[in-house]
């Protein structure tokens, strides 16, 4: 991707922390032309704008491997502008956007249009994910070469799984040419059978048709078997079940080239949330049972699950304000992901270092993105956080165009104070309210 012209900035009085690089200390940070020049006992440089970090924690900006910005085609749900704004308000400086737009991101023209729009907006860095198959139809591979050259950093038919084992095999083999991963949304549609929430005692009581754990696990098993034969790199999207975590763990033990993500809702909520949050607790994969939630946390602890992604999936209120089975799947997540994830640290499941790693350096490394590090010479994509700062989700609205979140009204810790991309202050919690 072509870098935006970087800016210069002097950030005073912060505690900077990048666990992946072993960077930790108090002081100031000098950014010149979009890159970190020096950290620590640094003096301001003449003519460079200064901001006061007020003693907050400065991390590498978060990197989201899984978001839906809905542009082109569904601008009433989200746009690249509103999605980028939501991202930086949540501390995300880089966002990988899924291909299920209209038109689908299956040609270089669409990829270039997305990148151009993101540059005009100039908040978060946007990295497009190209479709695996044309029109997400599951039948013809996209021109991955052209898409890669245009800026696609991975391939996925997300929203649905790569339709057949054969197509997945070809995609994994062919994508090796460009050393880009294939991301799969693991689901067996036959087992899901138009289910709308997790299958279990809650779905039975509510009379809603269920999506069994096996739906995800059958597909993970398929993908891992195919991967073993085909080579290439597989990234499993949004792990949600204990069985899927177990299979990925075992595959990693055998050194298969697989990585995995989960989302904050899978380790913070269970299917019980459907009772009170209704369609704002409807996503795919669905919220699972408590034992699955705990297994996902275990997976994050032992590294089976590499990263926390958001699966930010905005939908308009008229779409979510419907009968449960008619409403679309998905919730927004960019603005709450860090605070929800911070609970894992507060409950002692992860260290702060592990959390930051799984939100920045690790996702950047998986997709080979030049971001996610706070080191001299690195891109100055940074986030300033007040860990003990409390805020109420959604109380000032959301920067996202949509409001479909089960966390609205929750009081959370971990306030994003400022976000910097390429040395430019792109979000300041003091400076702006939500739209």
């Amino acid at each position, binding site marked *: 991707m072509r870098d935006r012209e970087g800016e210069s900035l002097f950030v005073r009085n912060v505690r900077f922390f990048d666990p992946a690089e072993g960077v930790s200390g108090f002081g100031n940070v000098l950014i010149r032309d979009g890159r970190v020049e020096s950290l620590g006992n640094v003096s301001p440089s003449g003519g460079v704008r200064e901001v006061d970090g007020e003693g907050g924690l400065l991390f590498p900006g978060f990197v989201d491997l899984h978001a839906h910005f809905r542009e082109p085609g569904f601008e009433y749900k989200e746009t690249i502008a509103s999605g980028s704004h939501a991202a930086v308000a949540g501390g995300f400086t880089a966002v990988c956007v899924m291909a299920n737009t209209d038109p689908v991101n299956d040609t270089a023209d669409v990829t270039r249009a997305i990148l151009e729009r993101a540059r005009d907006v100039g908040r978060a860095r946007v990295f497009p994910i190209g479709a695996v198959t044309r029109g997400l139809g599951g039948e013809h591979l996209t021109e991955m070469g052209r898409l890669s050259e245009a800026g696609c950093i991975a391939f996925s038919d997300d929203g649905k799984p790569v339709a057949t084992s054969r197509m997945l095999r070809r995609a994994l083999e062919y994508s090796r040419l460009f050393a880009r991963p294939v991301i799969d949304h693991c689901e067996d549609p036959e087992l899901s059978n138009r289910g709308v929430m997790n299958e279990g005692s809650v779905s039975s009581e509510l009379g809603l048709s269920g999506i069994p754990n096996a739906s995800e696990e059958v597909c993970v098993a398929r993908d891992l078997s195919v991967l073993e034969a085909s080579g290439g790199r597989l990234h499993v999207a949004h792990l949600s079940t204990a069985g899927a975590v177990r299979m990925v763990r075992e595959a990693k033990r055998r050194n298969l080239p697989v990585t995995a993500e989960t989302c904050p809702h899978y380790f913070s909520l269970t299917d019980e949330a459907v009772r009170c949050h209704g369609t704002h607790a409807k996503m795919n994969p669905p919220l699972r049972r408590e034992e699955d939630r705990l297994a996902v946390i275990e997976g994050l602890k032992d590294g089976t699950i590499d990263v926390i992604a958001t699966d930010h999936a905005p939908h308009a209120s008229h779409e979510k304000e*419907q*009968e449960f089975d008619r409403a679309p799947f998905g919730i927004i997540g960019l603005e709450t992901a860090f605070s929800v994830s911070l609970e894992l640290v507060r409950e002692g499941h992860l260290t702060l270092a592990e959390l930051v790693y799984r939100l920045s350096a690790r996702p950047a490394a998986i997709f080979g993105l030049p971001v996610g590090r706070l080191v001299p010479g690195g891109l100055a994509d940074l986030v300033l956080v007040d860990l003990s700062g409390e805020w109420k989700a959604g109380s000032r609205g959301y920067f996202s165009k949509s409001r479909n979140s089960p966390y609205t009204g929750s009081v959370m810790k971990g306030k994003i104070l400022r976000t910097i991309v390429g040395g430019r202050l792109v979000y300041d919690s003091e400076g702006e309210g939500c739209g």
Partner: protein
Amino acid sequence: MINKILATGAPPFGPHLLSVSGLSPEVLTGILDTAESFLEVGHQTVKKVPVLRGKTLVNLFYESSTRTRSSFEIAAKRLSADVINVSPTQSSVTKGESLLDTVRTIEALGADGLVIRHPSSGAPAFVADRLRCHVINGGDGCHQHPTQALLDLFTIRKRMGRIEGLKVAIVGDILHSRVARSNIMTLSRMGAHVRLVAPPTLIPPGIRTWPVEVYHRLDEGIRECDVVMALRLQLERAAGGYIPSVSEYARLYGINADVLDRLAPGALVLHPGPVNRGVEISGEEGFDDRSAILSQVEFGVSVRMAVLYLLMGGGSEEAFPDKGGKE
């Protein structure tokens, strides 16, 4: 009991009837007792009492229904309410209007109560959260059918004299049955022992937490039961792969006179209707007085009168029918 309810001036539950899950044994008994008082209205020459005069009830049925819709309509009319029936085929629903817009429009037209039947589980609760008028669940998806469970409870109490301690077998497609879900709650709450009898494909997942015993074989499941409740089998279940064929289902789970002989003496057969003759039930003519299916329909009107009155009546005592010292 009724005097107690009327004296408080407030219905014992509500403002809506969306599920039976929150109804205590006392409230359930109160509803049945109220229904008992209304039963005689159906036997008067002028089958009308003025307790809901000036109130408007809207029946909004997104699924076809004869007995439930007519039962609510007759119940409301016997209480002197005005009743409007709205069914989606003849309304703006076919023009793509959302459920929320439809019910808000109905409320704006001045409805005091809304009976809603909808194929989506949770739809009545969804609209109740967004309306001020009373909402009564007339059956939603595979979730709840509260008035059916209440009328079943009423029928059992009326015919058996009690509910507590009875063994009740619910036979059939439990997985998709709102009738079963509501009945399991009300019957177990009133002290009955509930058994479910169905092939493993039609038992809901995660059922371990329910207060029921699960049987897969009919003969074992109904042995010495006091009540057998056969559920309607949607004939498309065979196409969905839940059962191999309707005829195999009928052979394994159909209730006939031979099967009845394995029940406790004086046992009762219930069915929420409409019956697939020869599938869930065959040879009903040989059941003698053990079939309560038509009683269910008759009692359904009184039970729905009780529900409407308790929710919408506002407890105006003098308007209540003279109880004639029957209690």
